[in-house]
């Protein structure tokens, strides 16, 4: 294992410290909780607060999406492990300007429990909390059990839509509804080529045999639903697109947002190779791509592989995506 670490037990705290130093123009550490990162613009008077959180190892997620017109505060967990209820609670308090807080997070057992407990704690302070639980990962459960699906990179588009809606001064109900709508219009799939290693374990979490790939892999290295022979990039892109489009019902003239994220160790130029094929195919379908994102937006330590996320846009989502957003992980200038 060749990694830049001091003590594995300290790596999350050190990474968070470095992150807030590097992005001090946009974010700050919570004064009483070293596992909560808060936007410089939060809490903002007259606006609903947005919170997310999750395990570390997905950088720039989750803390990279704290900023202007994005998430107001983030709870940071251990590597691949949910933040504590206390951290979610501190994040909720930091984000609350008196208009309630919407917690937009991914569907994992730990996060579900800790957010539930945090919301209960916040309710005692008189803070109204609503939640939207991301479940964009198509391969993690069949459509009829969509509530079991995991949340992956599609969360970024959910935060973007929710953040832009909150910026308009919309009510808590309205922000929740927009974030839910964005999520319902979003599907993701992951393909893994090589595993990742938690430094404290010192060895890979699982194995992917040479010459094979795991389709539907989770972004913590949850084994995929299918292991197949490694294909050429265009064929992989086709498979990924087919999986997400199977539930999208796209027709000519539709507009989508596309996100291709690396899982950490895949060279960025390979992500562009995937995107080249995806864009070509969508173009052939006469589907317009708005604001494509290609890069390491939601990683899984040094896993090799990529995720594809497609969000089908309606007029509201299109207008929201056109607005300004500024956070360490994403900058959009209208």
């Amino acid at each position: 294992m060749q990694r830049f670490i001091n003590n594995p037990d300290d790596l999350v705290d050190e990474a968070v410290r470095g992150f807030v130093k590097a992005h001090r123009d946009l974010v700050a550490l919570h004064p009483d909780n070293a596992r909560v990162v808060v936007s410089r613009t939060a809490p903002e008077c007259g606006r609903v607060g947005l919170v997310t959180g999750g395990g570390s190892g997905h950088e720039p997620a989750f803390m990279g999406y704290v900023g202007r017109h994005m998430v107001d505060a983030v709870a940071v967990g251990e590597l691949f492990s949910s933040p504590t209820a206390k951290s979610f609670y501190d994040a909720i308090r930091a984000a609350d300007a008196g208009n309630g807080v919407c917690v937009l997070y991914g569907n994992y057992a730990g996060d579900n429990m800790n957010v539930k407990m945090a919301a209960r704690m916040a309710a005692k302070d008189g803070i109204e909390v609503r939640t939207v639980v991301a479940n964009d990962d198509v391969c993690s459960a069949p459509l009829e059990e969509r509530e079991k699906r995991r949340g992956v990179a599609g969360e970024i588009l959910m935060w973007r839509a929710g953040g832009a809606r909150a910026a308009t001064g919309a009510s808590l109900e309205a922000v929740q509804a927009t974030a839910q709508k964005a999520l319902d219009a979003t599907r993701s799939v992951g393909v893994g080529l090589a595993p990742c290693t938690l430094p404290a374990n010192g060895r890979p979490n699982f194995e992917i045999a040479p010459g094979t790939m795991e389709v539907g892999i989770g972004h913590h290295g949850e084994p995929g639903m299918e292991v197949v022979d490694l294909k050429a990039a265009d064929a992989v892109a086709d498979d990924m697109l087919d999986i997400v489009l199977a539930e999208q019902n796209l027709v000519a003239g539709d507009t989508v947002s596309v996100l291709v994220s690396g899982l950490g160790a895949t060279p960025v130029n390979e992500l562009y190779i995937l995107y080249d094929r995806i864009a070509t195919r969508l173009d052939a379908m006469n589907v317009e791509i708005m604001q494509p994102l290609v890069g390491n937006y939601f990683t899984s330590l040094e896993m090799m592989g990529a995720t594809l996320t497609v969000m089908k846009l309606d007029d509201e989502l299109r207008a929201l995506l056109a607005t300004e957003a500024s956070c360490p992980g994403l900058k959009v200038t209208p």
Partner: protein
Amino acid sequence: MSGIRNANNAAIVREIAECIIANKAYLSEIDGRIGDGDHGNNMAKGFAMAAERISDDDSLADGLSTLSGVLMTEIGGSMGPLYGMMFEDMAEAIGDESMVDATQFQRMLEAGQEAVISIGSAHVGDKTLLDTLCPATEAFANTPGNFQARLEAMKAAAAEGRDSTRDMIARVGRSSRLGERSRGVLDAGATSCCMILCTLADGIIRRLA
């Protein structure tokens, strides 16, 4: 003796912590086969923190309460809230009692079991720590004899419960998405729960002598 003192017995909780720390790599390894491989690391970190904060003068209830506080405020994950609530309600069940005898202990186990059921969404058979905790609690409640004999029965049922998870398909938590592929491996939570219950029982048995 029919029971142990509640006072000055927090060292039992430290013994539980030592057991978890000693099995850190093993717990992460079995978790890594069908989960994300962090169970041992996170558990060891939390239990070690708690052990540092526990003094020998503390009562068993205080020790459990300290452990609960650390798990809930410092650890997170799934195990933070699940074990956090379990130990908190166990601590409350024995509270200020001067002695922990078989009756108190049974109340403690049942309170812990209730806590895990209420915060999580699992049932027996779902390949979770409940597959250890529930049969262990039941065995303690239904075994005749003295405190020690009932503790031994609880240990045996805990181990059997843990082993039963090997052939189960996970129905909740991260490994549940694997379906059939989750079969053939012990559940990490059921395994750590067995360690916790067995070390707790051994600590009491030694002090009963």
